[in-house]
């Protein structure tokens, strides 16, 4: 029976970063790896090493240059870390090539593992994130315009399209919703839009966030619970909603209480739900007094309960954290993700 070789690395649309040139180059990369696999399967990997390494060198020169140029054009926030990874692969490919030129040929398995690792950790994860950013960035101007015009449908169509393209939840939250809300806030502060428009943008954003919820609820549950709320008097709830959704997306059951939650009501809910963490959101500095009162009362009733605090009011504030081991200040969704991951690790150790 003849045994047909299988395409070990199959490029499927789920790997698309939706930038045609980059996608094309990624597909070439997949093809090169399949060629190496086929040659190795015949025990003749060494025969194509020269060609393959030449292609890889060309790839790392051209493809990386293209990506880096695009990153600079769209002001990609993770550009430096991304370029660092490119440098790392360039160096490793050069090392392998130098060894090959010195006459070392027993390097096919090492090369295959190096390339698979790159594919698994860079192209599928890191490039995909960049692709998502590019997609969102390209839609940002239209989204912001729709948002400022109160065009719920226009915003909805953009978000639905991005969701259909498989853009990650985090990318949408950070680089579409949050970015658009920050921009709206700036325009309001410059008196270029009215407070009514700012409120309209907020309600539309909350609606847009709800469009992602079917994705959030599909993730496997971890059995952990979080209560997320704004402190009493605080009316800006978009940030808190993002925190709550992030918990849901990462498998926690999140109870989002919304804006302006009085302490007594919060304590009752905590007694009922027995969460693993309480998240408090404060956007306006004048509500920090309420925040302190909430923390104090919560710890009086639930001494071991971890409290995470976040929001614009805490951008430069962390005085309380030094004194209270159960209180942490988080400044971004990345920090929240890291905190949840740490909690997962702690649990697996215990």
């Amino acid at each position: 029976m003849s045994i047909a070789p299988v395409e070990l690395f199959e490029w499927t649309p789920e790997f698309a970063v939706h930038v045609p040139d980059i996608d094309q180059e990624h597909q070439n990369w997949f093809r090169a790896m399949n060629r190496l696999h086929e040659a190795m399967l015949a025990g003749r990997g060494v025969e194509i090493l020269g060609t393959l390494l030449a292609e890889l060198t060309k790839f790392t020169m051209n493809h990386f240059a293209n990506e880096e140029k695009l990153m600079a054009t769209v002001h990609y926030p993770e550009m430096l870390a991304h370029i660092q990874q490119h440098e790392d692969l360039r160096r490793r490919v050069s090392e392998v090539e130098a060894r090959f030129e010195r006459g070392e040929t027993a390097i096919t398995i090492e090369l295959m593992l190096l390339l698979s690792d790159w594919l698994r950790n860079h192209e599928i994860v890191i490039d995909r994130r960049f692709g998502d950013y590019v997609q969102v960035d390209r839609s940002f101007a239209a989204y912001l315009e729709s948002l400022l015009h109160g065009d719920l449908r226009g915003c909805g169509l953009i978000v639905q399209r991005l969701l259909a393209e498989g853009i990650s939840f985090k990318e949408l939250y950070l680089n579409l919703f949050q970015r658009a809300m920050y921009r709206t806030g700036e325009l309001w502060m410059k008196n270029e839009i009215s407070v009514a428009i700012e409120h309209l943008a907020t309600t539309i954003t909350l609606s847009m966030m709800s469009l992602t919820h079917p994705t959030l609820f599909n993730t496997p549950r971890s059995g952990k619970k979080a209560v997320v709320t704004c402190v009493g008097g605080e009316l800006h709830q978009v940030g808190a909603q993002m925190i709550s959704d992030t918990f849901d997306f990462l498998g926690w059951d999140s109870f989002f209480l919304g804006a302006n939650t009085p302490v007594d009501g919060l304590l009752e809910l905590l007694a009922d739900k027995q969460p693993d963490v309480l998240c408090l959101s404060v956007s306006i500095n004048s509500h920090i007094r309420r925040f302190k009162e909430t923390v104090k009362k919560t710890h009086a009733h639930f001494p071991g309960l971890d409290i995470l605090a976040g929001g614009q009011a805490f951008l430069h504030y962390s005085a309380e954290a030094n004194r209270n081991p159960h209180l942490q200040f988080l400044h971004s969704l990345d920090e929240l993700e890291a905190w949840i991951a740490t909690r997962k690790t702690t649990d697996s150790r215990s």
Partner: protein
Amino acid sequence: MQLTDRLRIRDVVIPLRARPSDASAQSLGQVIADLDSLNHDTEQGFLSIGGKLSQFMQTVSVISSELAALANAEHGQQASQALTHALDRATEIRAAHGSSDRGLAGMRHEVGLLKRTLSGFQETVSTFRTLGLLTRIETARLGSTGTDFSDLADDVSLLAGQVHAKVASALSIADSLIPPIESAMREISTLEAGQTKDLPALISGTLASLSSFRDVQDRAHESSDRLGAQYGNISDAFKKLIVSIQFHDITRQQVEHVIEVLRRLNSESGKVDGNPSSHPRGTSAVLALQSAQLADAEKKFRASVESVEHNLEGIAMHVLEMANESRALSGVREDGKGSFFLPMEQDCGAILRSLGDTANAESAMRSTRKGLAETIDRMNSPIQEILQIETKMRMMALNARISAFHLGADGSALDVLASSVQELASECRERSDLLVVSLGSMSETATRSRDEAGQDPGGVPGNEGGCMDELSIAVKDLHSATEQSFALISQIVARGDCLAEDLVSTRKEFSVGTLFAEAVTRARGSMQEIGDKSQSGLLSDESEESESGLADFMSLYTMQAELDVHESVTRVATGSVPAEWNSSPSGNAEELGDNVEFF
């Protein structure tokens, strides 16, 4: 009741009268259309799985073959032999290098002696020059009487100059001998480190890896055996799947029956009173009967679908187990960064590097040793010339002494000078003899060394580097086999993962169960409604008898009867025929009725 009576549905539809109903006629038509569409859709669902079955089975078979190929691969057998051979030879190589190293050390000592001897010549040359000068003075003192001796002074000076030049040349050659000797000794040291220390360690490491690989192969064998059983389970599951799919055919036929009856019912409508919307009498009972048929079909269909889903899940589970077992064989870590095969490859690479270094050192040493022998040969020439000069000097001194003797007392001083020249020439001879002996010894060492360098390190003439070449080829083959196994396991894992994913996705896409249940519920609801409406228009006396008969028939008429036929026919095919079938006059397929299909 005969079997044929139970199966001939057309005889059961008794034309009865009913009140007209437009809505019910439309509903009936809709039910027929729905059921038709249902049959088509479910057929597609089952066909889709059926179509994938052969592909699934082929993939499982390929995985099985690949695993067996891995288990039975003659991986590294040849390499193992060559490595063991090379390990044995390493001891011989060490001994050969030790002897060679000692020879070179001796040669370095000889060069030292040679240089000291040659330096001794320089003093002699100086004495010769002094003697030449004294001869010239003495000759001048004798005046015309000493004319014959003026040539002696010139000759002594000339020969002293020649000796000086030759000694300088020999010393220069002797100096040039030291660097290649030291270089050769360093090369031996490199070879010693490479061939007799590093290489055996690398070879031992590779042999250990090969042994570990054999363990992997043993596990692959066990996996292959387990896979055999697993493959049996999967094949059984596939067979059950096929039976489940065939079983669906029965429900399809049941639905077809119902459609047929409903069509007839629809076509009978209006024939009695000319109103196309009026149904024949007994419609309610017929619909109840067909509704029961549908309920029965739905029950069987559900069982069939559950069985298909269960079997697909079972196969997917077995396939995943196979893939995981294969993944464990490759020792690939979850992050994909390491594999059992990587150290194997690194061992091969290290051996090939070491062999490359050794080959370079061997080549350099061969060239050094060859140069050494040539240099020593070159040194022979000035020393032979010194010997000739020394002979000339002795002859010249002898002639001078004879001439001095003829001069009598006047010649006594010159006689002393001539005898000194003679003595010095004798000393030169002794030194030259020593040089010749030293050179002979060095030449012998160099020649031996050159010959050894041109041979296989084990000492087999005419098989230059044979052992190392054999080892190099074997290690390259080993690497080739290693990458092949690595790629094969990766392929097995990928195939297993793909198949499992495909099975899970097929299982997810297989939604005909819900579709069927919903459609049947809907159809039965509509039929109930039409039946109720029809029932309300019937005369009670006329209907009672018919309804009672139909109720009896309904209890008998299910497609179970067809299933019985199917099973009985299967038994006939396998030689097990029930007695009632043998006695039945309707034992052939045509007499079983139009609604029976053999499959």
